C-alpha cells in the first residue's frame, strides 16, 4: 500500500474545565478522544456524526488551528514523503510537533474550506485580495502575478475574473462557497479539510458545489477530509467514511460498504435519517432520540449505549427490544434523580379525571406509560425489579429505587468498551454486537 498522505493516530483534544477562584482544573470536555485513521493520496475521507460529536474539533486539531492534547497527526504531503521515525520515536512529519517555520510550510500544503460562507470572508476586503492574501503571505510580492493567478482561479471555480474586485456581500451563498474553494486551492495544497462546506446551502446549490468539488479533486488530485452531518452528502463526494460519536470513531470503511452493510447501530441510524424522496415510505426509519450526551462525562462502555436501539440485553433475560430500551431509559433517569413526581402526579390526575387524589397505582402506570414500559413485563425478574423500583419512587425513596434498577438491569454495552472489529479489509466498527463477527484489530502507531 502506498504511504498515506495523512495518518491520524490516537488524536485527542480535551478542553479543561476550570472552576473556583484559583482556576483549578476540575475536569475535561473530551471533544475528541483518541481517533485514528488514514487518508491516502487522491482520496476523500468523510467524517460524519451529529453536532457535538467532535468532528469539527477533530478537523481543527488535525489542521492545527487548535493544539491537540495528545496523539499524532503525520502529514506526508508536500515534499515530506518517505520520512522515517527518529530514534526517540517522534516522527519528523508530526503536525502537532511542527515549529513555526514548519507550520508555515504545512499551511501551504494543507488548507481548509469553512462551513459558513457568510462569515468566512472579511467583509472589508475584496474577495480577490482575500484569495490573493495567501499568495502574499507565502512571499509572492509580484502583485500583477498574484492578480493573474487569482483571476484565473476564480474562472476555474465558475466565477469571472471581474469578481476579483467585488466584496463578499455582493455574492450569494453558493458563490461565496466557490470563492472559499478558490481560497483553499490557491496555494495548490495536497490536502484540504472541508468542514461542512455545503450544510448552509440550498439543495440545488449543494449539488452544484459538491460536483465542483469532485471535478476539482479529479483535476488537481488533492486529498480531502470531508466533514458533514449528512450521510447523503458524504455519499456524493467520499471514497471512505469514518463515523464519529462522542469523540470516537465507531465505524470506518468504504462508502459503498458502509451504505450497504452498516455494522454499527449508530451508522444505521444516521443512514436512516436521510430523508428519502419517496412519500410512500414515511416514518419507517430508526428514530435516534435525544441528543449527543455531554462529552465532559461520557457514558461508560460503549458511548452510544444510552441511545442505541439495539442495546444488548442481559444474558439471562429476554425482552422486546423496545421495552428493554424503555427500561434502560427509565433506569438512567432514576439514576440521575431526574424524575419529577409532582408533574407525573399531575399528569396522572389529568388522565384519571376523578377529583379525588391520585392512587399510587395510577402514578405508577403513568410513569410506565411516560417511559413506554409495558404494564406487564414478560420477564418475571424484570417485572419485580421495576415494580419494586416504582414502589420506592412513589414513596419518594429514590435511592432504593436506583438500587433495585441498577442491580437488576445491566447491559454488557455499558460495562466494557467495544473493541475495533474488522469486517472487510479496511471496514472496522466498534460494537459489542459484532464481537463474534470478525477479528479485533490493533492499529500500529504510524505504520508508514
Amino acid at each position, binding site marked *: 500500500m502506498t504511504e498515506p498522505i495523512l495518518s491520524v493516530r490516537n488524536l485527542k483534544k480535551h478542553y479543561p474545565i476550570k472552576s473556583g477562584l484559583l482556576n483549578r482544573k476540575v475536569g475535561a470536555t473530551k471533544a475528541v478522544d483518541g481517533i485514528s485513521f488514514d487518508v491516502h493520496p487522491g482520496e476523500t475521507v468523510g467524517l460524519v456524526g451529529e453536532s457535538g460529536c467532535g468532528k469539527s474539533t477533530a478537523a*481543527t486539531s488535525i*489542521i492545527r*488551528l487548535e493544539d491537540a492534547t495528545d496523539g499524532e497527526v503525520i502529514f506526508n504531503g508536500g515534499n515530506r514523503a518517505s520520512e522515517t521515525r527518529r530514534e526517540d520515536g517522534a516522527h519528523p512529519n508530526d503536525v502537532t510537533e511542527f515549529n513555526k517555520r514548519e*507550520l*508555515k510550510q504545512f*499551511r*501551504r500544503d494543507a*488548507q*481548509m474550506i*469553512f*462551513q*459558513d460562507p*457568510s*462569515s*468566512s*470572508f*472579511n*467583509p*472589508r*476586503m*475584496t474577495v480577490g485580495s*482575500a484569495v490573493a*492574501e*495567501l*499568495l502574499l*503571505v*507565502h*512571499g*509572492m*510580492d*509580484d502583485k*500583477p*502575478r498574484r*492578480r*493573474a*493567478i*487569482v483571476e*484565473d*482561479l476564480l474562472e476555474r471555480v465558475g466565477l469571472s475574473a471581474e469578481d476579483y*474586485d*467585488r*466584496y*463578499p*456581500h455582493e455574492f450569494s451563498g453558493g458563490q461565496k462557497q466557490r470563492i*472559499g474553494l478558490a*481560497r483553499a*486551492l*490557491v*496555494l*495548490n495544497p495536497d490536502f484540504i479539510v472541508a468542514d461542512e462546506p455545503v450544510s448552509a446551502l440550498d439543495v440545488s446549490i449543494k449539488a452544484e458545489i459538491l460536483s465542483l468539488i469532485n471535478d476539482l479533486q479529479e483535476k*488537481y488530485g488533492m486529498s480531502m477530509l470531508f466533514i458533514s452531518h449528512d450521510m447523503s452528502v458524504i455519499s456524493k463526494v467520499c471514497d471512505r467514511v469514518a463515523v464519529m460519536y462522542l469523540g470516537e470513531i465507531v465505524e470506518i470503511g468504504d462508502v459503498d460498504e458502509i451504505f450497504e452493510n452498516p455494522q454499527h447501530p449508530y451508522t444505521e441510524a444516521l443512514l436512516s435519517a436521510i430523508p428519502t424522496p419517496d412519500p410512500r415510505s414515511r416514518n419507517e426509519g430508526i428514530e435516534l432520540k435525544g441528543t449527543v450526551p455531554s462529552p465532559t462525562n461520557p457514558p461508560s462502555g460503549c458511548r452510544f449505549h444510552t441511545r442505541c436501539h439495539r442495546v444488548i440485553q442481559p444474558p439471562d433475560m429476554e425482552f422486546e427490544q423496545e421495552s428493554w430500551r424503555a427500561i434502560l431509559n427509565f433506569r438512567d433517569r432514576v439514576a440521575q434523580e431526574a424524575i419529577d413526581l409532582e408533574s407525573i402526579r399531575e399528569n396522572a390526575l389529568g388522565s384519571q379525571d376523578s377529583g379525588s387524589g391520585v392512587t399510587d397505582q395510577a402514578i405508577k402506570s403513568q410513569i410506565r406509560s411516560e417511559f413506554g414500559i409495558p404494564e406487564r413485563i414478560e420477564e418475571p425478574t424484570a417485572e419485580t425489579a421495576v415494580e419494586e423500583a416504582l414502589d420506592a419512587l412513589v414513596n419518594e425513596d429514590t435511592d432504593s429505587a436506583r438500587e433495585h434498577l441498577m442491580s437488576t438491569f445491566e447491559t454488557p454495552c455499558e460495562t466494557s468498551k467495544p473493541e475495533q472489529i474488522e469486517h472487510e479489509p479496511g471496514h472496522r466498527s466498534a460494537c459489542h454486537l459484532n464481537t463474534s463477527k470478525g477479528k479485533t484489530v490493533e492499529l500500529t502507531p504510524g505504520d508508514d
Partner: protein
Amino acid sequence: MATEQPDTFDEVNWESVRSSSGIVNLALKTKLMLITTLPLLALWLYDRVAVGQREKTFVQLGKDLGLSGPFETLGLTWNPAGLDYIFIFTIFLFAFYMILPLYENPRMTRYYWKEFKRNRPAVVSLVWLAFVFVVGIIGPLFIDKPEPDILKSFQPPVYATVDTANIVQCVGEASGGTCQGTWQHPLGTTGSGRDVLAFMVHGTTITMKIAFITTLIVALIGISVGTISAYSGGWVDETLMRMTDIVLAFPTLIFFLMITYIYGASLGLFIVIFATFAWGGAARYIRSKALSVAEEEFIDATRISGASRYRVVRRHIVPNTASSIITNLTLLVPGFLLAEAQLSFLGLGDAGLLSWGQLIASGRSSLEYAPWIILAPGFILFFTILAFNFLGDALLDALNPEAESEAEK
C-alpha cells in the same frame, strides 16, 4: 500581464518564490505617510533645537536656508507651536488612512456612499463639517488674527444697530443715537474690538484641532488597548481592563481644574488631559468587538493561510473593529467641543485663545445690547455638534456591510 512565470495557481514553483522585503513593498498610504511625516518631524526638531523662543520658525528657517527673500514675498512667517505639529500630523493620517483608502477602493466607497446618503440630515451634516474643516485649515491663511482695538468695541453686525451709548466710536453710520453695522465687520466686534468673523474663523481652527487631536489620541490608545487586551487574554487582558476601569472612573474635570490651577490653562493641556482620560469607552468597545470578530470564520481562514499573528490583527481584526469605533469617536468629539466651550464660558479656559468658547465667554457680560457676540458662535457651535451627532448615527448604519447582505437574503 507579461511575467515569465506561469500565472496559474497549480504551476507556481514555490521554491523559487522569494520574498523581497523592503520599502518597495509598503502600501501607498504608508509611503505617503513616511514622505510627509519625516519632513514634519525634521521641522519640529529644527524648531526645538535651532530656533529661539522669540523667533518665528519660518523666518529663522528662511534665514538659515538663505531664502529670506522668497520666504518674505510668499508671506511665510508662520510660527508653528507644538500643537500645530500634532495637528498637521493628524491631518496627514486622516488623509492617507481615511480618505486615500476610500479613493483606492471605489467600489466599497460607492457602496458606503449609497448607504450613507439615505440619511439626508447626515449628508447635510457632512457638507457642513467639510465646510468647517476647510475654513479651519485655510481660513487663517487669508484672515488675520483679530487684534483688540478698544475704539472699535461692540460694533454691530451689518444691517444691525446698537445704541451709541454702549460704544466708543461708530465705524459705520451713526444717526439718531444708533450705530449702523458695516461690511467692515460683517458679524460685528467684541467688547475688546475684535472682529467676530475673524475670531470665528480662527476659532474653527481651534475646533478642528480639538476634534482631530483628541480623536487621534483616543483612537490610538483605545484601539491599541482594546485589541491587545482582546487578543492576549489572560493577565494582560485583566490588567488593561482594570486600567480602563480606572480611566473610566477618573474625575477628569477635577483633575483638569487642579492642573489648570497650578500651571495655568492652555489648549494643549485641555486636549491632552481630556483625551487621555476619554479612551476607556472606546477601548472597551473595541475589545468586545474584537472578541466577536476573532470568533468569525474568516479569522480562522486567515490563520490557516499561514499569516502571522500581527497580520491577522492588523489586516483583519483592526479594520473590522476600527470602522465601528468611528461612530464612537464622532459621538465623542461633540463632548470635547462642548466641554471646551463650557469651561471657557465659566472663565476656566485660556483667555488668550481664539476659540468659539472664548468668543461666547467674551459676550457674557454684554448680552443685553450686543447679543451677536454670543449668538454667532453659539449657533455655529450648536450646528457643528449636531452635525457630528447626525454623522455618527449615519456612519453606524453605513459602515456595516453585513447588515445589508443579511437584509438582502
